[in-house]
């Protein structure tokens, strides 16, 4: 099957209201390399121009940039634009059935003094333990228990868990913040993609399985007959589960939409949880409001009417500069 090409525009704007005298920011805005994903073009424009910048790679292999501003400024705009293509990579249903039994995998990932770990398992156990946003609690293991009967293939269990979360939880942007603990999410059964991803990761880790947090973008479809709105999309988050023996050793699950991501999910970064790879994290000195405006637009490059609208928006921004 053919890869699908996208143009993605991710704009973040801070209007501080009063001058910020010193600002440091960490950016996880450049897409990482993946076997099924190619980045053709990518640029990040920043206003004002940072005083200092360093680009590098974090411990999980994601591109990261650090920038700092040493002169007073009242606004900050960061615009990340990329052309990217995603190849189909969703495993077939039979692949899920054929995956390793979850309890066998758990044994394999547990430490054994007599047996040094396999290289790929050692890589995976980075994502086996608690992390700042994902406490590992027995309540989580209990919640997931009925999806993981003894001998269940790990990916079948993961699919069932994803469906369970999708069925029992309600999408509600008002219910949580970035720092709502997952046990509270479990209790209230409400949240957003980030919460559902953290919750599912917590359940898997509580069972002794390795799971990663994925940040990225999702193609949304405008209502039939309506044009695509610029900036109406949002960053998205989902889960990646370790299943050695499958084509890529890891398989993605999107508990917010109850589906296995394929060509409509664009990956930015992978981490233990949100805190490792939050797109833009900073520390400022001074300033009034620190609430950002975030606008994300994902456009398939084979759509005809959209690039024009996008171009227009880009031109208008340029004229305003």
């Amino acid at each position, binding site marked *: 099957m053919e890869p699908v090409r996208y143009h993605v525009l991710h704009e973040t704007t801070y209007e501080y209201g009063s001058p910020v005298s010193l600002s440091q920011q960490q950016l996880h805005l450049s897409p990482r390399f993946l076997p099924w994903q190619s980045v053709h073009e990518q640029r990040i424009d920043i206003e004002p121009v940072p005083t*200092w910048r360093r680009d590098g790679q974090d411990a999980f292999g994601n591109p990261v940039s650090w920038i700092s501003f040493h002169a007073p400024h009242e606004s900050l705009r960061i615009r990340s634009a990329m052309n990217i293509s995603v190849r189909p990579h969703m495993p077939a249903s039979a692949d899920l059935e054929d995956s390793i039994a979850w309890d066998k995998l758990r044994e394999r990932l547990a430490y054994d003094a007599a047996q040094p770990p396999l290289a790929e398992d050692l890589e995976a156990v980075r994502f086996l333990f608690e992390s700042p946003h994902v406490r590992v609690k027995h309540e989580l293991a209990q919640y997931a228990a009925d999806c993981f009967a003894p001998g269940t293939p790990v990916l079948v269990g993961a699919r069932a868990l994803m469906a369970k979360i999708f069925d029992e939880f309600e999408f509600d942007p008002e219910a949580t913040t970035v720092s709502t603990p997952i046990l509270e999410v479990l209790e209230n059964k409400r949240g957003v993609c980030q919460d559902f991803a953290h919750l599912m990761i917590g359940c898997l880790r509580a069972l002794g399985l390795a799971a990663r947090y994925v940040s990225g973008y999702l193609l949304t479809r405008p209502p039939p007959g309506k044009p695509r709105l610029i900036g109406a999309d949002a960053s998205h988050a989902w889960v990646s589960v370790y299943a050695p023996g499958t084509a890529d050793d890891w398989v993605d699950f999107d508990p917010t939409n109850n589906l296995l991501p394929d060509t409509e999910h664009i990956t930015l970064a992978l981490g233990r949880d949100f805190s490792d790879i939050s797109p833009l994290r900073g520390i*400022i000195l001074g300033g009034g409001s620190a609430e950002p405006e975030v606008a994300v637009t994902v456009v398939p490059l084979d759509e005809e009417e959209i690039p024009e609208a996008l171009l227009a928006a880009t031109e208008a921004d340029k004229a305003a500069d």
Partner: protein
Amino acid sequence: MARTLLAIYPHSARRYDEMLKADGEVRPHWRRFFAHLDAVSPEDMHQRLDFADRRILENGITYNVYADPSGADRPWVLDPVPLIIPPDEWAEVEAAVAQRAALLNAILADLYGPQTLLAKGLLPPALVYGQHGYLWPCQGVKPPGDIWLHHYAVDLARSPNGRWWVIADRTQAPSGAGYALENRLVVSRVFPEMFRDLHVQHLADFFRDQQEGLTKLAPLDPGEQPHIVLLTPGPYNETYFEHAYLARYLGFPLVEGQDLTVRGDTVFLKTLRGLKRVHVILRRQDDDYCDPLELRGDSALGIPGLLNVARARRVVIANALGSGLLASGALMGFLPAICRELLGEKLAMPSVATWWCGEKPALEFVKENFDDLVIKPAYPTQRMEPIFGHELEGAEREEMLRRIEARPHAYVAQEMVNLAQAPTWSRAHERRLIARPVGLRAYAAINGEGEYSVMPGGLTRVAQGAGARIISMQRGGASKDTWVLTNGPVSEFTLLKTSFGVRDLVRAGSNLTSRVVENLFWLGRYSERFDDSARLLRVALARLVDVGGEKTQAVASVLELAQRLGVLPKPEEDTEVGEGSEHVLLEAIYDPEQPGSLAGNIRSLMWSATHVRERLSLDHWQSLNRLQREQQTAQKKHPTLTEAIAFLDRVLLVSSSLNGFAMDNMTRDDGWRFLIIGRRLERLSFLARGIADFLCMESARGQGCLEWLLELADSIITYRSRYSRQAELLPVIDLLVFDDSNPHGVTFQTNVLSRYLERMASELGADYDLRLSQAVERLRAFDLVKLEHLQFSQCRSCLPCEELAGLLYDLDAAVAHLSDGLGMRFFTHVGDVSRQTMAL
């Protein structure tokens, strides 16, 4: 001759006794000391103990106890009898501690680098990735010189057979070395002869090695001198005393996170004279609080961007960020194999037997032998007190076992250790040695050769009860000096009075942080403010006592002024001035909660002094300490008016001695100038407002009022010697406002102020505040002739009084303006707190 101390010293078969052999005979290396101790008379010993207690109290050696509801510092508890260790035995301990430090450094290098220990299965991933202490952003960061562990502390204990064991490793920001040093300074003076004759190894060499080690690692650009700072979380930390003490001893500026700022890949100290690059940060702050940009974002303590400086290898952070990981007790069982792998050596000193429950066989063992084990958290970031298996019964026991089974990797079990016991001087008896369990905290630091030096000595910690199994300073344990004997000559090197070096030739003050200067400025203001309010209250109380509580005009007018100046609370609408004044006055002296009270001012004074503690001389500090103790003691009683006056007398005495210290003992640097400016500003404001209010008050027209005004300005003696007659307005105003030779007069303050402000303007490039000099000019232009024929007792808001009062109010407003201006120019950027921002 009294009977020997041995007669009632308890012997224990279950514990190793440091002083006695199993047969009850005194060990050879203890004999001389014991004979000396045995010969000291009770009176002599009493004096020595007094000396030690006084030193501790007056040097302000404290250990802040978080659990203490009063939040107060607790004096350090020191037992004068040292722990004595003979040379051959120490040589083994020393080698083992140095080896362990090198091993732990090698482990950090591996875990933040290639992680071969995990790949080879020598260490479970749970003890690395599973720990919050493993800081992922530090993966791949290589510190200068490849040293992660610059200083290290290890808790040792002796088993009944006399063998030393490791109980715990401290790799985050080890504390206690400063207390060990302070213990040495006290105990070596309690037993000066013994200290000399026994050839006790000195500690100074160790600290010099530490200085050299850090200096050598400093990543310098061409032409730079190494700049090392000691980073403290602040005065509320339990060991803040030590931070201040070590900073002064090692000659490193004591800084808090907000004193440092990162620009690009360089970290700087914010000083009065601009940004100054820092090469080495000796941190006493936990690593996850050090950089809110990449580590914990919920903390205002850190230095945003610090990790990027580390990535660029442009700063030494000692210990490296992420080193706290190794304090996990769960690692201990894996160290022997790791030591063979990384160092190719046998681990010299064993750790106490430890089982990490994350291993299945270990978990089974722990469940079977629960009664004989101590359960501890596997990760140092977990908050949990050690639990003794045999102390749990029934449901509690079930619950604990259930918790361990639910998260086995989070727990370790350790064999219970019968700590060794050592002789301790009983404070409850006239003359008695008792036995208390002890443990030794030993220290190692990287030296100039890139090897680990071990402090010859350390902090001996003493448990509270005779049967105790845990030693904790938090729980109220005591400590001892540790005497390591040598067969060779004793090094005479000392850091206390250094010989001349380049460092000494650098003129003091160039490194002053803006925060320190701000606190010195407020120290100046508060010390004057508390002097002023004490004086005003004493004037009022003295008047009140003189007239037997009767409400004279003089009393009424003092009280009114005190209200106007905010020293007394504003009266209720329907009460008359002077009603219930005794009670109000006593509250204004003793109640720290009342706004503007003397006790409140003392508290503010202590607050600013605490923040600049390392800048104050010992005498200075002792004097402040005495003041606070006095106030706290008095607050608890119900003092009479006469007692209150006596208290105020003493307060003013301390105040003037404080002032004397500031004038005589402090280096004349920018910080000192800000202290004096603060003081003068405060006094000027008090005088200007006080005299202006006085001129406007109807009650001030009464008899005896001009006298108390003179007394308030401490000028009554001068006045009497000049005029030898009753006070009259013209000479009083001349003396208090215009006479530039009166140190308690307005003009004297403005003259001193402009001198310092001009100097600051030229040196620091600050703008000279014109508003103050203009107000001074206008005041100077006031024609005293206008007061010549004035009958003050009869005038009612006459023009000359009003005009003069107006000029003084203007002056006070200019002072406030100047104070704000200084704050804006030199301090404000310090007070601002960084905030985290986050965007999806």
